[in-house]
């Protein structure tokens, strides 16, 4: 993985991103805007199951309203996330938080679909917690030393 990150960092695209100071903050900002859409869409689906919001809407109406927005925002998140990996390969690919986050994104997306369809309350709490965990891991990519030897990042 270190070799792959090194190769990626030497590509023209990576060098371009790294040599323009405004690119990474811009991508990160778009990423956060998309997280807002994804998180609230997933929360609205989950909160409807728990009876916290949208009680004037059926579960099907709630899924019809929010699932497409969740799916679309995930596409934006994947695209902006990929650009961040290209721009800073070592920071992302060698981070334990990054890989844990990627795994949890797949699980959270599947769980959200499942609870939206099945309306299982207990599972909804788990789903919401996984989404919150993803937010934390996203920020913790910048602090991967907290994971000790689980992190592949070079030790400071």
């Amino acid at each position: 993985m270190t070799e792959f990150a090194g190769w990626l960092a030497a590509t023209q695209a990576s060098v371009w991103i790294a040599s323009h100071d405004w690119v990474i903050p811009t991508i990160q900002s778009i990423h956060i805007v998309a997280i807002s859409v994804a998180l609230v869409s997933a929360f609205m689906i989950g909160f409807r199951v728990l009876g916290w919001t949208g009680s004037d809407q059926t579960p099907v109406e709630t899924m019809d309203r929010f699932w497409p927005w969740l799916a679309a925002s995930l596409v934006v998140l994947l695209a902006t996330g990929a650009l961040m990996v290209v721009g800073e390969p070592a920071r992302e690919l060698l981070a334990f938080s990054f890989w844990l986050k990627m795994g949890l994104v797949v699980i959270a997306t599947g769980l959200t679909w499942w609870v939206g369809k099945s309306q299982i309350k207990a599972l909804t709490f788990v789903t919401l917690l996984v989404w919150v965990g993803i937010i934390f891991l996203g920020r913790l990519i910048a602090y991967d030393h907290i994971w000790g030897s689980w992190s592949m990042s070079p030790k400071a």
Partner: protein
Amino acid sequence: MNIDATLASLEGLRLAEYIRQSLYVFPFLESLHVLGLTMVFGSIAVLDLRLLGIASVRRPVAGVAIDVEKWAWWAFALTAVTGALMFVTNAAVYYHNVYFRLKMAMLLAAGLNVAFFELTSRRSLQQWNRDAKAPMAGRAAATVSLLLWIAIIFMGRWIGFTTTRVTGSKPDPGVNIEDLLPK
């Protein structure tokens, strides 16, 4: 008491020193700040898109507003408290940062925009509650709201890239995750 002395006394708080010394508290505050702000913007956007006639169009506006307001205020409180805690760790630097100032001005503008909506379209809500979109003033407020909140997110990220986080002078031995696991 002048502003520099006020900022210095904020930085001198034991709470500020505690946050600076810890390896974990600042990242934890940042994560809660992101959680709060994404919930604020995401939920407000649900209402704004309803007002603009883009999403939830068949649902009465009042129902959408009740859902959104319930969560947006709590999320805003979480974001404000975590933001204030990060501010005191390095108050003078944030205070003089141009992006921080722009962000605060935009937050004020977003607040005034809410007041504008409350004093205009919101007053006649019962007349257009089931319409596909809000009257002109409501759509204007929704557009301004979306643009301001997106700009606020950009400013927040730029603050992070134009300031250096202050950490404690003594390295924090902290807790290594592996120390918690059986050997």
